[in-house]
């Protein structure tokens, strides 16, 4: 994996990796519900992306509920949208104290490990990245996102305990993902983007860093994604130790690239909704050109969407984006 990062850094050609699995699911005639429930179907979708799009790498799904479900959260499964947590699992500090860290056979975790293993075994033309939720975002899903925002100040000890349990599970899960043979993991920590830089450091970074320290090496890279960050969390993201950082569309990439060390890969950040889904091939070409002018001179920059491409994003737009990345070098 170090070789992959070094090759990107040394290359004069900028590459692209939009965050996407939905186009594969749709092209193969599956529903999202099938893909998040069946590891073989998810693998087929990943393989389709790997085979049919000129991207620098591909990735497994990030539905961001599989980990909460393993802890016991109830999940709602729409046919064509990513699942959501349907009710709060933990009501108070006592519930946190009693919470057991789940084993890796809970819920859909085995299906996700299967999808990652099949992808790692069968996709040989580019790296495969696993996907998972970050510890603060997971804790928010278990405790309620609005409530955890207040609880980090009102009940800091209970939140520390919850975050530690989430982190313990995420370390185990990421080690299992690593064992499937993928080349890295994208840790999505969107809720941390709602925090100040200091709170991000306290409530997210120090826990993400434990995961990074446990799994990252020359064969396995952590890509930390925080799409809520508008600039206040960039320093905290860098401090995580992740070798690659992924940014959302709410941030100025030129500023990010100035702020980030040159040996960290930086991914970002065209709007997945207004640019990819609602745009046209012409508008996306134009938006890609603007991003190239801002960020293309940085050798550690990789073109990407600011977040997961939504269901039913027109494939023609994705191809226009990839063509534009090649065209505007």
């Amino acid at each position: 994996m170090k070789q992959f990062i070094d090759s990107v850094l040394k290359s004069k050609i900028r590459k692209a990796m939009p965050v996407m699995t939905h186009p594969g699911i749709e092209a193969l005639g599956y529903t999202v519900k099938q893909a998040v429930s069946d590891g073989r179907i998810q693998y087929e979708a990943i393989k389709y992306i790997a085979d049919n799009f000129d991207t620098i790498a591909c990735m497994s799904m990030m539905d961001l509920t599989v980990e909460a479900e393993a802890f016991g959260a109830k999940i709602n499964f729409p046919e064509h949208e990513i699942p959501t947590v349907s009710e709060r699992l933990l009501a108070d500090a006592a519930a946190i104290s009693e919470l057991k860290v789940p084993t890796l056979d809970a819920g859909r975790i085995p299906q996700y490990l299967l999808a990652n293993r099949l992808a790692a075994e069968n996709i040989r033309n580019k790296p495969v990245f696993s996907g998972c939720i970050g510890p603060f975002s997971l804790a928010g899903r278990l405790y309620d996102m609005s409530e955890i925002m207040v609880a980090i100040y009102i009940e800091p000890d209970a939140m520390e305990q919850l975050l530690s349990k989430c982190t313990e599970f995420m370390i185990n899960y990421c080690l299992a993902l690593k064992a499937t043979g993928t080349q890295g993991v994208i840790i999505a920590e969107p809720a941390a983007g709602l925090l100040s830089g200091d709170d991000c450091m306290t409530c997210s970074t120090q826990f993400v860093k434990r995961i990074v320290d446990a799994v990252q090496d020359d064969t396995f890279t952590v890509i930390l994604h925080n799409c809520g960050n508008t600039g206040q969390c960039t320093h905290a993201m860098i401090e995580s130790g992740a070798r690659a950082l992924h940014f959302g569309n709410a941030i100025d990439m030129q500023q990010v690239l100035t702020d980030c060390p040159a040996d960290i890969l930086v991914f970002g950040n065209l709007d997945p909704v207004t640019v990819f889904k609602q745009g046209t091939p012409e508008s996306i070409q134009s938006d890609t050109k603007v991003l190239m002018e801002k960020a293309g001179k940085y050798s550690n920059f990789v073109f990407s969407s600011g977040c997961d491409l939504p269901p039913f994003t027109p494939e023609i737009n994705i191809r226009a984006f990839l063509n534009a990345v090649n065209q505007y070098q």
Partner: protein
Amino acid sequence: MNKELLEKLSECVEFGKINQASPYPPQMKGQPGADEITREALESGIDPSEILNDALVFAMNKVGQKYSENKIFVPQMLLSAKAMSASMAHLKPFFASGAVKRKGTFIIGTVFGDLHDIGKNLVAMMVEGAGWEVIDLGIDVKAEQFVDALKAHPDAVIGVSALLTTTMVNIKPVIEAIKAYSPSTKIIVGGAPLSSDFAAAIGADGYSKNPQEGIELLDKISA
């Protein structure tokens, strides 16, 4: 004395001091919070309208401004909203009796099919803090629930939220149902994937990208 109490209350709301037991903010630890000070203000004879307008609305406006300028973030904003709610609980009898008038009524909910609520909650709290009565219908709200709420509050403005690209399209039938029942009712929309163009295309009367913009939009609509 009155002015001093209102200033203390305003400070509690601005900095999120809910009550004496709350450890936040650290510099006010052990001091009375919005809960205790509101009670004291009412016992000392301060007009509830003054409490609402000169302390709560004043403080929440500062909170909204600071949030818009990235000087505070979601936790600080929610703590301020909690402090405001602790104060507002003491004012409820005066709202019910009509002794205190609010700017209007705002019905809000996350559209059917969508279970996300943090953005909707922020807007609801900030709008309440701006002096509106807020009827929060929660998440996964169907068109008929909005219409039923409108029947109970005929002069209300309605806010509809969505977080997903697959659920934002559900806002249009909600708007159509509300307009079919009451063409003059104003409807504003918001949520991460929405835009002003999308809002206009589905027949909404306005779009706001953050709570503060939502408050300004409501003030404009109700003027």
